[in-house]
């Protein structure tokens, strides 16, 4: 799968949860995810600035990782053929309909894997019961 940088505009410290939720959604589908929190670049031994952060995002994404980051300098995100870039605002991600549509678009574009389950476990129990009643499956 091609790498991806999701650049989230305006996410300050208070918006870090948005990054984490999006990261959990994608990693739950089996995607390789790196969420860039405030001090991520320093932890990598690089000077903390938005340009350095963007370069680090690009390096990871060019190896197939889905990188979710805020506060980057877009000039450091030259995608070329190496990875895709999607931009979204913190406010947009807080709107559940927009968020689902954004994730769906990533999925249809082949940038993130589809959900691991096509049927929720609770619904699966109901379906199994119905399949038994209809005669498709033997009673337990």
């Amino acid at each position: 799968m091609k790498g991806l940088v999701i650049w989230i505009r305006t996410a300050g410290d208070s918006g870090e949860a948005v990054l984490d939720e999006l990261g959990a959604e994608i990693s739950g589908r089996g995607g390789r995810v790196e969420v860039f929190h405030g001090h991520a670049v320093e932890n990598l031994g690089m000077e903390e600035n938005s340009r350095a952060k963007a370069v680090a995002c690009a390096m990871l994404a060019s190896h197939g990782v889905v990188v979710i980051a805020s506060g980057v300098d877009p000039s450091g995100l030259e995608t070329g053929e190496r990875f895709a870039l999607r931009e979204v605002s913190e406010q947009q991600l807080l709107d559940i309909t927009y968020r689902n549509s954004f994730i769906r678009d990533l999925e249809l574009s082949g940038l993130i894997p589809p959900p691991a389950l096509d049927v929720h476990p609770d619904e699966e129990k109901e379906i199994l019961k119905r399949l038994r009643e209809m005669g498709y499956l033997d009673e337990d």
Partner: protein
Amino acid sequence: MLVAPHGGRLVDRQFEGLEAEELIGGLRGCRSLTLNARERNDLEMIGNGAMSPMEGFMCSPDYHSVVDLMHLASGPLWSLPVVLSAKDGDPEVSPGEKVALVDTSGDIWGDMVVEEVFHADLDMEAEKTLGTQDPAHPGVAYLRSLSGHYIGGPVRSVRRRRTESFPNYRLDPKETRVLFRARGWNSVVAFQTRNPIHRAHEYIQKCAMEIVDGLLLHPLVGETQEGDIPAEVRMRCYEEILKDYYPSTRVAMSVFPAAMRYAGPREAVFHALLRKNYGCSHFIVGRDHAGVGSYYGTYDAQMIFDSFDPDQLGIVPLKFEHAFYCRKCDGMATSKTCAHDSEHHVFLAGKKVRAMLREGVMPPPEFTRPEIARILMEAAAQPAGNSNAGTGEGEGR
């Protein structure tokens, strides 16, 4: 593990029970658009995920991309338009308006948020998707009955199990997927049919069963053209043959609620993609699949699959020849496996079979099992609609 749905995720925009009542209650005061029989079938299949990744009737970017390039605007392969036509008497709707979707009796079957109303060149659509503009072609005749304006937008659908035909055979894609997993099937072959089962079909299905875990018999019960054998008769034939001739643990039968479009090769791809959403890894494509008259070449519906990347398709087409009983081989065969002249083959033209059944003459057991022939003879004796019961033409359509 079962194959992934087309586009990666199974769409679920279907509501039933209390949720459906709420949906319908929320449409009070909304204007309504009337669905014809095909659109009603399509709404059901968008809602239950059979048409994943589609979430509504097509807007112009998807429509043009599918007609011209056989891909949705977002990328996935898709071979036929799925559209809602504006009709005489419908209100003039505007983008952003929520409308109820009703049948000709006024019953609500879902809703749509109108995204676009657009004009379409229906002659162009006919030429590109059906390969002809001949009004004698049932698909062209259908298009000629439309206004030329389509209304696109995301839909939600209502399911009412109690009023459905074949209620014991109605399985949505997520239900077939749960069924396949419960039976431990990873690879499943689907057999599409709008004909009763003769020995030739049985042979092809069983050949396919040798290489997969299970068979999904998926008779089409949506709208067909006048003269096609009624779904009730076809279902009775299948129920009968399943009793004694198939291992019950390796076969499941469910109905496929799509309308026939008679689009030949493009419809073969459409049928395959939808079966992928039901969880099938393989799809049987006979000669002249979804054909009508002589509009398509015998192998067109098989060859079209060669023009796609297997990963784009995500379901394996199994291409079969007409099968027959060969007296020299003493068994079922096709031209691929039999070395003998046609004089040794038991193969009857559809016209002859129809005449035999009408006259109460049993076709040879090498062509049709007697249990099936009896059902077809009984149906052929009915006054209207069933007069062609028993055609052996177009296996795997």
